[in-house]
């Protein structure tokens, strides 16, 4: 693995559309559930162990070479909210565009042909990691990092939260994030033998419920 390639992919400025998504933070702020750094941390911790874990396992699995179509269907089954499925595919499509330009590969071209309107973002992330010469743990690290940093940076814009406080939230969650990566990679390694049922399915009811309300807002800063 190349740490430098990993940093390129994990960089929040990697142009793959993430900046327009809050990971549910906008709806949670509006509901009065994120008000400060402490509640942001609680929010991010919950997201890390649910969506973050599932995304990381999907990404690690894709990086290990599991069938993207099966992983994409597994992602659908683990994402009951249509608004979140749409957002995940949109982000997947945007990431795929950036990835194909950054690390051209036949595998990524094949994915684009198979999913012209986008596959779930974690699946694309895993294949992007492969194209960049990275491994399953790298892909999982990127996924869990996004699951926390997305809402954290969005909250800076939404609440005017001190950016140092928001970054400290991500840093405090880092040890937990490492453990989530381990779980995700363990599960991903079982997919070859047991199929996609081996992937975790941890869910966050309020993320799903609020995502549907958020999708109906006429005035909002973030796409999801």
């Amino acid at each position, binding site marked *: 693995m190349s740490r430098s390639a990993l940093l390129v992919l994990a960089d929040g400025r990697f142009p793959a559309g993430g900046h327009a998504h809050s990971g*549910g933070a906008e709806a*949670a702020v509006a*509901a009065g*559930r*994120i008000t400060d750094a402490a*509640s942001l941390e*609680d*929010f*991010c*911790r*919950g*997201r*890390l*162990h*649910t969506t973050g*874990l599932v995304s990381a396992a999907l990404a690690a699995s894709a990086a290990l070479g599991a069938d993207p179509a099966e992983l994409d*269907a*597994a992602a*659908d*089954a*683990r994402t*009951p*909210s*249509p*608004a979140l*499925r749409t957002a995940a595919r949109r982000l997947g499509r945007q990431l795929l565009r950036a990835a194909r330009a950054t690390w051209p590969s036949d595998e990524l071209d094949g994915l684009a042909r198979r999913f012209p309107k986008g596959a779930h973002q974690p699946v694309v992330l895993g294949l992007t990691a492969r194209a960049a010469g990275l491994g399953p743990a790298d892909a999982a690290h990127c996924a869990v990092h996004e699951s926390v940093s997305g809402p954290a940076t969005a909250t800076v814009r939404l609440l005017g939260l001190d950016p140092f406080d928001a970054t400290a939230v991500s840093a405090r969650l880092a040890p*937990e994030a490492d453990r989530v990566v381990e779980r995700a990679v363990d599960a991903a390694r079982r997919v070859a033998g047991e199929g*996609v*049922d081996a992937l*975790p*399915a*941890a*869910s*966050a*009811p*309020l*993320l*799903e*419920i609020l*995502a*549907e*309300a958020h*999708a*109906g807002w006429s005035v909002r800063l973030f796409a999801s």
Partner: protein
Amino acid sequence: MRTAGVRALARIHARADGRGGTCLPVLDGDGPLAPRRTRGSGGEAHVVLVGAMSGPLGGDHLTVRADVEPGARLRVGSAAATIALPGRHPGGARQDVTLTVADGGELHWLPEQLICAQGSDLTVTTRADLAPGARLVLREEQILGRAAEQPGRLLSRLTVRIGGRTVLDQELACGPGATGGWDGPAVLAGRRAVGQLVLVGPEFEVRPVGAGPLGEDAAVLPLAGPAVLVSAVATDALRLRRLLDEAQDRLAAPSV
């Protein structure tokens, strides 16, 4: 207090009787699980699961299996809420529910709430395998703790397959020892009642249901297949049931 963990199995098998009704060639259970046939309506057989003992306790492993054959119609409820309690045996308690519905069969799986009492540790799996032309109404409600007590630990996984394809796979972990943030703003935000209502039927392919919120704490979520999930959280069991009942009425109306 029991001294050894209980292994128990309940089985229900529903078959079309050829005269527009449904018969139950298999209806048995042991230990704390006792399925009883009650008066049905129309062509539908009704079964109530009666908990002969309180449970599940730590160390128990309960298995429930219901199979609905082509054209048969079965409705299963329970006599009272299930209360998960702490036990003397390590490793927690386990309850596995496996449901299959064949083409043209219909299953209404509507048990009462699962209450996770303080100190309990329960793992629940519910798995429904449906043929493409099968219909299902499934409700699950998890209540975290009895009134004014801390919740027990619960790990609950719900999987729905239609024609071999998984359309819903979701796991909820909560209570002490669950992964972090379970009670925080992304997951339950202090709510103590969580519920899922799953509706499956070919009609959802023809006439998809629109997604959208149902108030602040529930949403109608059409799945990637001929199925809909209503996901809800609430402060207590009563409010949760009301939310799910309203959703069920709303979703059932256009399909008949």
